[in-house]
């Protein structure tokens, strides 16, 4: 079919090389190139740096002092355990969600996303490459929490690291997808402060980060259990200090995955690549 192929055999070899053999390696290379640019942009934005580095630290410290008065015995957690396991979720929420929404809106309004889509990079690679720097920053802070908590706060080392990591991975996926969807609803970078607030509050209060869901009325508790970030937080907490039986573990995993699948579907359906203004 292609005239090019018959005419230029040496480039044909090249062409199949381009499309099949090294798809994943090329994909990684493209995302790395985009992530590097995105990291440069993150470092150059004072607001983004503040949200990525100082805000999560302050929020974890603030909750630590706030939970001093709280009776956590019902949830069966010590103060250190509650703050640290919730802190991992909080860091993911603040760093990923609050950074990625304005970043994506800015790129979209500057037509960067549209321009990127004219190149070889795939849509999913654009989103993942853009998210990579903030996700990395968030993961490094999670690591700091785990190490510092284990070493300084007399919290035991994670009991099931695999579950902990799975919880973190699912939490990252859910939050990246939520950020992409929120960016789709956000017209300007300024309005990102408003559009991110509802999901931020809902996740911070209703996902069991610091406030045990059992203290809510029953109906509320049930609703909160299905929120996107609740199941990943449960997995993180269980991975660190236990508390779930096998069925609960499986259902938390399944619920997280369901949110990821729904998120991917919604992003494909509703994300806007072209400027809204």
């Amino acid at each position, binding site marked *: *079919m*292609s*005239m*090019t*192929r018959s005419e230029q055999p040496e480039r044909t070899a*090249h*062409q199949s090389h*381009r*499309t099949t053999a090294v798809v994943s390696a*090329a994909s990684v*290379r*493209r995302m*790395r*190139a*985009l992530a*590097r*640019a995105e990291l*440069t*942009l993150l470092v*150059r*934005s004072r607001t983004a740096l503040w949200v990525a580095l100082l805000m999560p630290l302050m929020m974890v410290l603030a909750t630590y002092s706030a939970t001093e008065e709280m009776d956590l015995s019902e949830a069966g957690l010590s103060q250190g355990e509650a703050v640290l396991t919730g802190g991992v979720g909080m860091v993911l929420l603040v760093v990923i969600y609050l950074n990625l929404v304005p970043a994506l809106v800015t*790129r979209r309004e*500057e*037509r*960067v996303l*549209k*321009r*990127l*889509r*004219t*190149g*070889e*990079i*795939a849509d999913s690679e654009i989103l993942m490459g853009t998210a990579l720097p903030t996700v990395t920053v968030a993961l490094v802070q999670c690591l700091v929490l785990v190490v510092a908590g284990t070493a300084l706060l007399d919290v035991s080392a994670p009991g099931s690291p695999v579950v902990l990591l799975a919880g973190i991975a699912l939490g990252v996926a859910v939050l990246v997808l939520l950020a992409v969807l929120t960016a789709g609803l956000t017209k300007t970078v300024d309005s990102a402060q408003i559009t991110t607030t509802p999901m931020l509050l809902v996740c911070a209060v209703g996902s069991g980060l610091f406030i045990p869901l059992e203290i809510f009325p029953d109906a509320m508790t049930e609703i909160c259990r299905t929120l996107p970030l609740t199941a990943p937080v449960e997995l993180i907490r269980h991975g660190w200090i236990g508390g779930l039986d096998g069925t609960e573990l499986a259902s938390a995993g399944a619920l997280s995955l369901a949110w990821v699948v729904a998120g991917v579907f919604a992003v494909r359906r509703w994300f806007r690549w072209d400027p809204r203004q």
Partner: protein
Amino acid sequence: MDTAIEVQGLRRSYAGRGSESGYEAVRGLDFSVRQGEVFALLGTNGAGKTSTVELLEGLAPPTSGQIRILGLDPFHDRAVVRPWIGIMLQEGGLPSELTALETARMWAGCTTDARPPEEALALVGLEGRADVRAKQLSGGERRRLDFALALTGRPRVLFLDEPTTGLDPQARRTTWELVRSLRDEGTTIVLTTHYLEEAEALADRLAIMTEGRITVSGTPEEVMAARPSRIRFLLPPGLAPAQLPLSLPAAVHDRQVEIRTQDLQTTLTELLLWARAQGVVLEALDARSASLEEVFLEIAGEQNELKRHAAAVQGGEAA
């Protein structure tokens, strides 16, 4: 054999919102572009140029019709086609806080068999501005950086949507030189532009679009030759229009005489011989072949006429 782009029966409709009816921006295009050719797509705003180019680039699927870029479907075979084509959109897309070099490096990292970013910048004469952030570049420099990105993958087919808008005359010449040298290396180039002298200077073949259709196409010479040349002068004082040579189809407004002719040399000779015989001076004498600009304006004018006529009949045909 050497066809780089083949377009058949191309149509593109945009869905209407709510009660609004949809809009058909591209209404049945057929054309082809040979390898190593510069093909210019001209038209007034809203003629459907960008809608067409977006389809050629594979950014959207056509509503109907077929496109082949290097023998492949640019939308469905996107992953295979993209490494072979370079695209410059009508408007920017550069992160404002990245420098020219950082932007070129990012693009190179996303491109197969890429030119080194420094080389891409040098091609468009931006090597001296490598460390300047996009927001501090002039509009013309941003355009050239965008061009550098389009050239990063050593494309065989290059799409340039108004590449010289905002460039000063010097930079525009440099871009023209670059387009010519790319063409000489065998790159196929599809160009849209508002500047008709640009199309005249660069295009091997061109098409003028009006309302989603190609109304005129061919080499610039063919397109211009199809339109009459024009002779103008002031009617000599004391002479009545009726005294002009009858063989010349002249239109006279006040003293301004305009003659349109397909054969400029013969008509002009006849006019000058007549003037000598009469012993009259033809003030403000001006004779010229149709320029691309005149052809363009004439087509746009005809289209406006048609539109005015059609407006009355519109109701029934809207669907």
